[in-house]
């Protein structure tokens, strides 16, 4: 048996599964320290299903915490965005093409220094160590706690980023560093963007992971726990502390895979309505359609491999303004049960609207009796219109498609949508995300330089594929289910022996013992 948990901005959901069967589920509001909510939901789940903590074989946690932090521009630390590459790259400084508010949230501390490498490993310029020590002084003076270091062609050689990291660590001992060659691939601006976003999330990552750990410890659950990453596979917690950015978009992947399982549909649009946002994506053959070229996260271009998802500011906690004509993008988030009117608060949210309309019976209905019929009607129209427009934008043809509604905020949509052939509310839809996390797979990755001389590229690729598969099995995958999902090779012309950097990823189902 395994437990899937989804820690969203508003709710923490948990589901207990045996294979593909749902044995039980619970939902509770997310708490400021996420561990309280997790403890509460798991305690309820275990007592309801009469399962003992010792029988739990694995815990999978998906969280939209990091994505939400970027989208809402909250709980981000200021980052020194350090680029090594001058005199090249000057035309487009760090944070180019970022939304102005997010660039401000990370502080616009941009530093460009001489350094970087050419494609063949030569230096564009030697690392400007003196300049870097001046940057360090500035970082200390401004009390910046995180830095992102991005050097031109660091996926070919990460040495200059590592050297820069050593110098910064010497000068600013407590600084938390994110190095671009550990995070992204070739494609400088996208890799630099991801590295800066990773850096602004590191404090939050430490807090969140230690909360997870504390919660499981308190419940005496000794089973290993994993956190889902953006491609739907699982990562070890200590990896998440350093690379929170790799959890981006794990929420949509989990909810879409959960939705496919629950609705028994393989070709459909999925709208996952949470507390803060709605994520809209498309299922093809039961898997999320991947974005082909680049993915915007909070308005910033990255080159992660991710599901193509459109996030709009419509959730169960979204604020309702202008007599119902304007909804979101801000949300009361996890404070829904204290700030929404039906829960005794004074903030008008979308949840209050569906209660006032008599569509749901949540909290105290008498507290929203005073809302005018026209406001309620306008707000309902606005909400359905937002969902419809989002589905419409993500659809790739005018043909009608079924729409699967999942997530705790699925109650917001009660009518048909013009863009949908039908609207499906599957069972357990409010915990689709946790179900998707519970059925997530484990991956094994190989990423290193191979010499091709004296053998063939196919033979070398076979070796890499076998190694990646072995690693997936070692990480807990069932050997018979392991498949290769990603192969990439970047030849390194400057090294003898026809060297090539090969990256292979294998995934399989978690083996249950």
């Amino acid at each position, binding site marked *: 048996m395994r437990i899937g948990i989804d820690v969203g901005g508003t709710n923490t959901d948990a589901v207990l599964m045996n294979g593909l069967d749902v044995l039980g589920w619970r939902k509770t509001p997310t708490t400021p320290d996420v561990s309280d909510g997790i403890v509460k939901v798991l305690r309820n789940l275990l007592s309801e299903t009469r399962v003992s903590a010792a029988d739990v074989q694995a815990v999978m946690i998906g969280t939209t915490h990091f994505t939400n932090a970027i989208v809402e521009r909250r709980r981000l630390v200021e980052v020194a965005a350090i680029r090594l590459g001058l005199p*090249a790259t000057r035309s487009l400084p760090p944070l180019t*093409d970022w939304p102005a508010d997010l660039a401000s949230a990370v502080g616009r501390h941009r530093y460009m220094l001489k350094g970087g490498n050419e494609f063949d490993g030569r230096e564009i310029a030697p690392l400007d160590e003196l300049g870097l020590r001046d940057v360090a002084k500035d970082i200390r003076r401004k009390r910046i706690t995180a830095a992102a270091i991005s050097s*031109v062609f660091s996926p070919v050689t990460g040495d200059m980023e590592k050297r820069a990291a050593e110098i910064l660590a010497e000068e600013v001992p407590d600084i938390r560093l994110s190095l671009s060659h550990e995070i992204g691939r070739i494609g400088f601006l996208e890799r630099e963007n991801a590295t800066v976003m990773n850096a602004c999330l590191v404090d939050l990552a430490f807090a969140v992971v230690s909360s997870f750990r504390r919660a499981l410890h308190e419940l005496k659950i000794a089973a290993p726990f994993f956190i889902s990453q953006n491609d739907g596979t699982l990562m070890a917690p200590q990896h998440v502390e350093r690379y929170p950015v790799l959890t981006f978009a794990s929420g949509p992947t989990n909810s879409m895979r959960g939705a496919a399982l629950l609705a028994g549909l393989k070709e459909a649009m999925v709208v996952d309505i949470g507390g803060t946002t709605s994520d809209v994506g498309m299922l*093809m053959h039961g898997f999320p359609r991947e974005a082909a070229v680049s993915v915007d996260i909070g308005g910033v271009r990255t080159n992660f491999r991710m599901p193509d998802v459109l996030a709009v500011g419509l959730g169960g906690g979204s604020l309702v303004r202008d007599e119902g004509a304007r909804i979101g993008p801000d949300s009361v988030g996890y404070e829904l049960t204290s700030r929404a009117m039906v829960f005794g608060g004074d903030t008008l949210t979308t949840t209050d609207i569906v209660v006032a309309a008599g569509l749901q019976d949540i909290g105290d209905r008498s507290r929203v009796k005073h809302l005018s019929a026209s406001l309620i009607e306008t707000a309902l129209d606005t909400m359905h219109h937002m969902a419809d427009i989002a589905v419409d934008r993500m659809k*790739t*043809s005018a043909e009608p498609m079924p729409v699967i509604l999942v997530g705790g905020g699925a109650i917001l949509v009660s009518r048909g949508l013009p863009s949908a052939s039908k609207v499906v509310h599957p069972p357990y839809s409010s915990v689709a995300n946790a179900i998707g996390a519970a059925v997530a797979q484990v991956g094994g990755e190989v990423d290193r330089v191979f010499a091709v001389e004296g053998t063939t590229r196919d033979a070398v690729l076979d070796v890499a594929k076998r190694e990646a598969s072995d690693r997936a099995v070692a990480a807990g995958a069932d050997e018979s289910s392991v498949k290769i999902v990603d*192969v990439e090779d970047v030849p390194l012309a400057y090294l003898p022996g026809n060297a090539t950097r090969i990256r292979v990823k294998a995934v399989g189902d978690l083996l249950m013992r």
Partner: protein
Amino acid sequence: MRQITRQDLMDLAVGAAFLGTGGGGDPYIGRLMVQAAMDEGKTVTILDPSEVPDDALVIPTAMMGAPTVLVEKIPSGDEAVASLRRLEAHLGRKAFATIPIECGGINSTIPLLVGALTGLPVVDADGMGRAFPELQMETFSVLGVRGSPMVVTNEYGDSALIEARDDKFMEWISRGVTIRMGGAAYIAEYSMSGADVKRTAVPNTLSLGIRIGRCLREAKTNHKNPIEALLQMLPDTLYSYGKVIWRGKVIDVRRETKMGWALGFARIEGVDGWKGTMEIQIQNENLIARVDGKVRAIVPDLICIMEAETAEPITTEYLRYGQRVVVVSVAVPPMMRTPEALEVFGPKGFHINEPYTPIEQLT
């Protein structure tokens, strides 16, 4: 004469990626550089070739090198202007305008950046009608304009002035210089008169790029099939014919950076009734598409790989295992299909031992 808008730039980035047939570099970076200049209040004016006086001096500007280098090593921004100024100094004359040598990929945007930074207008035409990997592969060259003298500049402002005996040798020398400069450098070459522009350039290809981008965008907004919309628009242009030649899933991509080029191939396993595997040979651009050894499209006709669902053109450096794609081929204008033109940028120009067969005649 008209000014380029922000929306034009966005559309051009998509249209130029299409015309790049996989190569030419991601226009995204070029677009950002022009936008950054516009943010500082600078403007870009484009001119129809008919608006250029016959005796005016026009100096093309461009980036040369491997697109895989460009997405990683972003320019300082001053390189192409430095090349143009150095060539002006050498010629002892000021340029009236600049012009793209290549309408596909990032080179559709470099002259716009030069235009924004210098105030020179940009002629709405180019010398390739698409993207090609070598500098002699120009209608300019085929029709008698000399590439030399040429200037190559890097991010330090180091530059080389090249006078070569012919355009192919100019390409060979400048390629070596470019590799020494890190695999991407910025050039000015093929200086010519307004009369030569009218005689030798493929006309209105900048505005074609903008039209293609706009067509795909509007089709998506209106939930029309963007690829069909594009194929319906083409007869209205010099590029009179296009068709879908494959649908499938990318099962292998092989790339290497050798001698300053991105060489390789992509294999696409057919889906939806397209049986077999298409292999596309790449030398910066997609050159030839074969299924089981049978040619389905061949250079200089365009071979463009597009994301199956969104119809986004996918450039070589972003091709990945597992992508679902549609392959579209488009006929190039008659001036690019003459025996003299095919000699330079037909299959023979790429050492491909196949005759050129127009896409209209291939099944």
